[in-house]
């Protein structure tokens, strides 16, 4: 019995079923930073209707699958983003919006915004543009769905394996690291 469920072939079939469910049911955390949060309402309402793809808003990190970093991320917000990300349940995905999350964008010499998002939390899909329009956002979601189906969206695993590296980067930027104790 145990062997029947644990051999590689049945695991593969199970993964296909799981990934199909995961890719067609993406709950996005209703959390917006910067200017890109204004692109989310048109994306999920009548005009562009992201619910066709099973994309839906979730109110708390516990229920969400996708964390959208919509635009520039100040150091103060980064602290909250890390907490929200760590409270989400595996598997979880991160999408970076706009050039601000890729290389700082127009805030490249600002003292208060981070320049590379993937140094602090793992990013599965980047959408470039300033800001990306809802079409681009939906294209990004479709790309994320492809990655999930192929089993390549493994940022959450990467984060757990390289936690020390991420913590080091996070603590370099956040001077006063006072995170409350919580279990993930």
């Amino acid at each position, binding site marked *: 019995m145990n062997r029947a469920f644990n051999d590689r072939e049945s695991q593969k079939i199970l993964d296909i079923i799981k990934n199909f469910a995961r890719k067609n049911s993406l709950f996005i955390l209703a959390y917006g930073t910067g200017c890109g949060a204004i692109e989310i309402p048109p994306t999920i309402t009548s005009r562009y209707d992201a619910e066709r793809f099973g994309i839906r808003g979730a109110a708390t990190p516990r229920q969400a699958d996708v964390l959208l970093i919509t635009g520039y991320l100040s*150091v*103060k917000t980064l*602290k909250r983003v890390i907490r929200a990300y760590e409270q989400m349940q595996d598997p979880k995905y991160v999408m970076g919006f706009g050039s601000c999350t*890729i*290389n*700082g964008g127009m805030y*490249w*010499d*600002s*003292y*208060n915004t*981070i*320049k*590379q998002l993937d*140094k602090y939390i793992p990013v599965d899909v980047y959408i470039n543009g300033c800001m990306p329009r809802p079409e681009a956002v939906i294209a990004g979601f479709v790309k994320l769905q492809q990655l999930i189906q192929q089993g390549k969206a493994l940022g959450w695993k990467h984060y757990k394996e390289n936690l020390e590296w991420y913590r080091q980067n996070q603590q*370099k*930027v*956040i*001077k*006063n690291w006072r995170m409350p104790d919580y279990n993930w």
Partner: protein
Amino acid sequence: MADLQKENLLLEVLKNHFNDKIFDLKVQRHQRVHLRTTTEQIEAVLLYLKEKLGYKHLSHISCVDWIEENRFELVYILWHPEDKINVLVKVDVDRLNPVAPNIDYIWPQANTYEREMREMFGIQFPGLVGRKELILEDWDDLPPMRRDFDTLQYVMENFEFRSGREDAQNVRETIAKRTGEEIPEFAKKYSR
């Protein structure tokens, strides 16, 4: 169009009341009067403008860093809802020992502006109530809006850039090179 009757009348009233305590008194343009005073007189001037002349609304308190002249300049922008006149009251603060009077008993909303200036420029307002942090969090460097705070150096020390864009760091220069335009020397620093 520009009938400056009301503005000149205000100028007259202020000149008679304060004499030599205010200076640089002038009508800048239609609906805008400019004057300058000292930190000792600023509360008297603002109270007089509010209580006697009806400048009820404090639009903004702004701060300018004149690093070459070693002073901060606070600009109080007042608005008269009936006469429709903006009054710009400017006051100089010493840059090495920046202390300005706290005026949040005149306009409660001044509290927020003063806290912001305390945080961003390091100007002290004696008796100002409120948390030390308004926008920044755990900031341990120079107040960031001061001009002697080098933003680029701070960024280079604390953040890392993604490699691959070294050829196009200076967009303005790249465009100028392409079109054969010459950038003047003073504009080069701000044309990145």
